[in-house]
């Protein structure tokens, strides 16, 4: 192939790769916005576990600002709870699975966001 054509092909390849990778990054909404849309209805606008829905729920949603509890859960626990729901971690069915709503990368961002709400890491407050 002529070197100039090679360059074109290379640029075209890059563009295709870029477009293929783009959607996930573009479609991923910031975790704060996802929290407000999907989690705040039960966990509260402040993340304190006191959402608008809780009055008649037999198991109350977790307080995500509770550093003592949240630091006892690993990032993997939080990821699984968020993606597969309460039943997947032997907790209440009232905590729904979000795997058909949020992408894995959005859920990873959500775990990081939960860590900012509790000001905590796994194993330390």
């Amino acid at each position, binding site marked *: 192939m002529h070197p100039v054509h090679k360059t074109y092909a290379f640029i075209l390849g890059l563009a295709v790769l870029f477009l293929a990778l783009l959607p996930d990054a573009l*479609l991923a*909404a910031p975790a704060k*916005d*996802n929290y*407000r*849309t*999907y989690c*705040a*209805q*039960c966990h*509260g*606008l*402040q993340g304190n576990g*006191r*959402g*608008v*829905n*809780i*009055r*008649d*729920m*037999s198991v109350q949603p977790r307080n995500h600002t509770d550093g003592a509890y949240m630091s006892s859960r690993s990032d993997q626990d939080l990821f699984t709870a968020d993606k597969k*729901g309460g039943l997947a971690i032997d907790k*209440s*069915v*009232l905590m*729904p*699975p*979000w*795997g*058909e*709503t949020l992408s894995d990368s959005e859920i990873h961002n959500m775990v990081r966001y939960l860590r900012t709400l509790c000001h905590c890491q796994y194993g330390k407050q």
Partner: protein
Amino acid sequence: MDIRMPIRAVLLALAGLLSIAIHPADSRAADSPGMDLLKNRCASCHSLTGPAPASIHALWARKGPDFFYAGNKYQRSWIVSWLQHPVRIRPAGMFYADHLKPGPKRDMVDESTLRPHVALSKADAILAADALMTLKGHNDLIKMEHVAPGSISKSMGEMVFDKFLGCLACHRTDPDYGGLSGPELYTAGSRLRPEFIASYIRNPQAWDPKIWMPDKHVNDARIQQLVHYIESLNLGGSHASSP
């Protein structure tokens, strides 16, 4: 014989077909006063053409339920009566987070931010309902559903809805029991078509990709039970069962 004549006729026919294909809605709307009513008085809040919001910011901005699949979702008789006497269906409005205020025990619905719905005369309600019934988006999803006639006891229905699946977290099953971020379901038996109820529970994201109802992977037997339970709640008065 000159062969250009038939070729030209074929080309003209193709052009005609093409223009119909490009402007199907316009040409239909011109001869339906109901569709004109929807376009003039409802389309500012209700999408008649779709698609559903593709981002959560579009979701937050939505002003009323999407209508591009209204003919597959609602029961005509319910629309006619509701439009004359609208009663709130979503206790916390279209996007709940915009209608909350902090309370001592939990976030509370701020009623002062909710507006009553426009009411129509009987004649206009009928026009609107008939036009809405022609909007048939997502035929494919409806065709996949088959709801068998049947019933479920109140206690079993509550067990499935409240305990096994946790639906009550977001939906009310009577005017003072259940969650507030989803539409009430105690009139859903007269409001919605059974196949729509089944399809929405099976895959909410197929109807509304960004909606805050989760896909709980409910199996088919449970879906049938849930449809029968929701129909049994029916505080909305008479309802037609599936055709």
